[in-house]
């Protein structure tokens, strides 16, 4: 019993970070209907940047988003204007080809620059554990989960209450109608892409407080976020968080009771089941 609770709890903590990653993908997909296959590699890239910031400049991973967020935000704008914008009018297979190409390219670059071996930071100020009775929780994971939820709430507020957020929602509902209401949807697309990309910087920083990064991670985080998005459907941030938790908990239970190597398998399984029975997601729009 204790093992189950411990496992579920660590799944919940991971699930919050997963939800943050998927939120970035959801923003991009929701607004411009482009599936960014390179999204997982953006997370990986952020983790490597965090590694650099930590190992070269002694910046703690938890604070690294102060630098990596603007960097990835800018990167998002460049990718949007350089690659995505040109494909918006094209068939979706071309968009897939472009983002898969970007994924491969980023994967190759990271291997070249940081080699294939795992990289990790030795120290973060959020190290240590907390004990609740007989349960132990790594402080870094707890803090990361809390920060993830806070960021998700901030984005949620941004979308609901601010003008750029409303422009994003209006454009995602109907880009033509939005443009006739005076919204420059090219700029809105670029903002959504940059924000989606920027969020991976925060996730990358949080992840690096307790785990290492290697060049296979991109694919895993990409897959994770597709699965969460498929589970959640579009349009509900609460749904996204719950889906993140479902994926996090399933993964954690699989690792505890089955085999640590089964984590990806379980995610694939959820993905397939959702596409099979609930192709529009559990919480999505009608």
């Amino acid at each position: 019993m204790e093992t189950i609770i411990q496992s579920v709890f660590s799944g919940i903590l991971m699930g919050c970070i997963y939800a943050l990653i998927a939120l970035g993908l959801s923003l991009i997909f929701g607004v411009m209907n482009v599936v960014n296959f390179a999204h997982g590699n953006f997370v990986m890239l952020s983790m490597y940047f965090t590694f650099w910031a930590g190992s070269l400049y002694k910046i703690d991973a938890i604070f690294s988003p102060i630098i990596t967020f603007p960097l990835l935000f800018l990167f998002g704008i460049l990718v949007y204007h350089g690659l995505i914008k040109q494909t918006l009018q094209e068939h979706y297979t071309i968009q897939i080809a472009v983002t898969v190409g970007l994924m491969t390219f980023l994967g190759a670059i990271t291997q070249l620059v940081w080699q294939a071996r795992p990289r990790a930071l030795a120290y973060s100020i959020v190290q240590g554990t907390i004990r609740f009775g007989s349960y132990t929780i790594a402080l870094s994971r707890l803090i990361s989960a809390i920060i993830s939820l806070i960021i998700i709430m901030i984005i949620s507020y941004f979308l609901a209450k601010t003008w750029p957020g409303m422009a994003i929602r209006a454009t995602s509902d109907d880009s033509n109608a939005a443009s006739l209401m005076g919204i420059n949807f090219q700029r809105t697309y670029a903002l959504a892409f940059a924000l989606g990309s920027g969020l991976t910087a925060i996730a990358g920083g949080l992840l690096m407080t307790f785990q290492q990064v290697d060049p296979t991670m991109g694919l895993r985080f990409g897959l994770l976020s597709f699965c969460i998005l498929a589970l959640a459907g579009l349009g509900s941030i609460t749904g996204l968080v719950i889906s993140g938790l479902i994926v996090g908990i399933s993964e954690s239970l699989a690792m505890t009771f089955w085999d640590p190597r089964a984590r990806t398998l379980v995610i694939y399984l959820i993905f397939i089941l959702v596409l099979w029975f609930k192709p529009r997601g559990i919480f999505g729009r009608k």
Partner: protein
Amino acid sequence: MLPEPILKTLELTKSFGNLIAVNNIEIEINRGEIVGLIGPNGAGKTTFFNLVTGLEAPDKGQVVFKGVNIVSMPPHKICKLGMSRTFQITRSFGEMSVEDAIRVGAYNRLGENEVQKKVDEMVEFFELGDIRKTKCSDLGLASLRKVEVARATATEPELLLLDEVGAGLTSVELIKLMAELKKLNQETEVTLCVVEHVMQMVMGLCERIFVLDAGKLIAKGMPDEISNNQKVVEAYLGRRSYIESDVAC
């Protein structure tokens, strides 16, 4: 000399494959008037609206709005210049509340401090108080159309294009909407151009009417002249039964 028209099209032409949807259309709309654009299905009315609002680019010709040729200008800039529209098939922001949808329009010209005032003003004018917090996707057709007009009006346009805003409304709803549009035109001096199938609406509301058929402008004039115009009767009004059924629904 007559004052400069607010909107003028010159040799406006657009084809899709072999079909010429809009063929050499030249019209002028004067400031402050309410004009109608009618024609049978497939006459090119919606395409004409799309060309004017920048959603589609014409093959040939000019759209001159307030003295500026706006062909190839993106829609949001045209909106900033002072033109807005509604859609035949309602395209409200389904995931947003009525209030938020109108707020999106209001941000076109206004800053953070004035937006709320504008939203309240629109909600009051179009009598949307009861549904201001309702999600657009939960609304019925009559309310949706009103929200679209309110949203477009909130952008503070000088020219407002209404695409079949009366379609699918009951005659009671229609009369109410017409009264609101007339009041809007008188109070804000906004120029209205309505594309309509519903003849009751066109004849009751418009001061001048343009008739399109198969992409061409076949007649223009006052409502009385139009209903007695032989060409128009043949192309459109001749199909009495069709029109009556349209009004009835």
